[in-house]
């Protein structure tokens, strides 16, 4: 119950910001941060809880974005339905890819997810209707009442999606599903011997994870009024989705949130003031340092601090 109060409060805060702040930049930056919260949370469902590393976030994210763009172009589908369609498509991709490769060891799954990105990108480069290599321009419809600015509307939408994603991750984490995933991560053989249907759970986690990544991508074409393969299937999404939970903490649903807010803000600052390359370098170093020295992430470090005096 405490969670839901907090979640609604966060969402209302976002709405409040939308009403009160006038500088559009806040919403551009905020949208990106919230989008990475969704990606990181989605990644953590399979990666943190289940122990299977996914390098292919751009594939699911990009498929969601392109699904939304193509459906908008073909049928002028409203954004809400674009998001649902994106969830279905990316979820289906997660299901299929999971069924094919989650029978194998973790490292094989990881490499296969890289293959997914290459395949998706190649597909959309060669699909003329979706814009091919040069991309697709899209005309935004007017923002829905009571929003004046489309960007602000997307910001609030993404805040809502972020809350939803975290709620889903939390439910999985505290339920018997989460316990089963953790058992798989700790010792898949013992989990299987303890009655855990390992393949089913893994494929489930991969499907949900993929669907949420697709949801994160769906508003992107409207956000940019434009979509093209190279930037949509960009490695930065893979890095952000993976590094955020590993730095923030993989065991708890707040870990990816902390990590995403931190890394996304860092990215905004460093990329603008220095360069994108230095940003990736910083993230890479942080990832290595945390993975080696602070395996429980920032959350783990926070727990070690004696907050209460005994």
């Amino acid at each position, binding site marked *: 119950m405490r969670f839901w109060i907090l979640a609604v409060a966060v969402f209302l805060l976002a709405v409040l910001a939308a009403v009160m702040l006038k500088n559009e930049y806040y919403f551009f930056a905020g949208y990106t941060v919230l989008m990475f919260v969704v990606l990181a949370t989605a990644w953590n469902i399979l990666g943190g809880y289940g122990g299977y590393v996914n390098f292919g976030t751009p594939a699911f994210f990009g498929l969601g974005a392109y699904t939304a763009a193509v459906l908008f172009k073909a049928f002028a589908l409203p954004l809400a339905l674009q998001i649902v369609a994106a969830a279905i498509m990316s979820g289906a991709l997660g299901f299929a890819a999971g069924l094919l490769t989650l029978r194998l060891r973790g490292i094989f799954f990881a490499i296969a997810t890289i293959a997914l990105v290459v395949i998706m990108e190649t597909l959309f480069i060669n699909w003329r209707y979706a814009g091919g290599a040069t991309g697709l321009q899209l005309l935004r419809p007017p923002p829905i009442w009571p929003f004046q600015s489309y960007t602000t509307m997307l910001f609030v939408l993404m805040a809502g999606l972020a809350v939803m994603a975290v709620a889903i991750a939390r439910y999985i984490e505290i339920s*018997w599903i989460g*316990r*089963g995933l*953790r*058992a798989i*991560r*700790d*010792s898949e*053989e*013992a*989990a*299987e*011997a*303890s*009655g*855990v*249907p*390992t*393949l089913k759970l893994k494929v489930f986690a991969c499907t949900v994870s993929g669907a949420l990544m697709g949801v994160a991508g769906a508003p992107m074409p409207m956000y940019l009024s434009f979509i093209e393969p190279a930037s949509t299937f960009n490695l930065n999404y893979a890095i952000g989705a993976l590094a955020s939970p590993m730095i923030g903490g993989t*065991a708890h649903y707040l870990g990816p949130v902390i990590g995403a807010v931190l890394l996304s803000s860092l990215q905004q600052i460093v990329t603008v003031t220095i360069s994108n390359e230095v940003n990736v370098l910083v993230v890479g170093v942080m990832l290595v340092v945390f993975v080696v020295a602070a395996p429980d992430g920032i959350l783990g470090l926070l727990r070690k601090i004696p907050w209460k005096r005994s």
Partner: protein
Amino acid sequence: MEALLKVRDVSKHFGGFTALAQVSVEIRAGERFGLIGPNGSGKTTLINCISGALQNDGGSIVFDGEDVSALPAYQRTRRGIARSFQIPRPFSSMSVLENLVVPLEYVRHRGTLHIADTRAEALEILRIVGLHDKAQTQSNRLTQVELRKLELARAMAARPRLLISDESMAGLSGNEVDEVLAILRTLNESGITIIMIEHIMQAVMRFSQRVVCLDAGRIICEGTPEQIVQNPEVQRAYLGA
């Protein structure tokens, strides 16, 4: 007595190496069954094939009248086959108690009961194996001996009809061996069929009603503990030609 488990002509190859060569054995319901053999004879491979951790290449495994050869391990566990692991594999991020909640939730109470109920059951099992006071300890902090007990407790939590104990007593002191034997006997008295793999000859012979000896993937002798001990083939397998 009807056979609970029928292993018929089971074979298993790893590349060119034959780990099991047409092994056949029948285990009756309620029996205390011992499986012995020198290192590398295929004991754990046979257990893995029965529990489903490995897929057998030839032959069939029939449990309670049902051919389970094609079933994945978790479904065999749900049908009543549980095993402990030779090298303990605890769910190291979880407490001792939570380790038991996993099989309780996934085998016994598939998604129905609240956590509160499974915890009471888990504590009861921990009491039996003597880990009750370590319930909240994280399982990666246990000693080797405690880990072995946890392995057994986890197998018990699956409420099996057939429990396979894979070297649960390795490294235990004399008293501890007696403790574990007592637990297994109690389980057997409540109707659970037990297959015991053990190197501690004394324990196997005291406990088992029937014993089978494996060597190089084949059964070389089957009989009562007294018969096995006197069998020259068995002596040769253990001591060398």
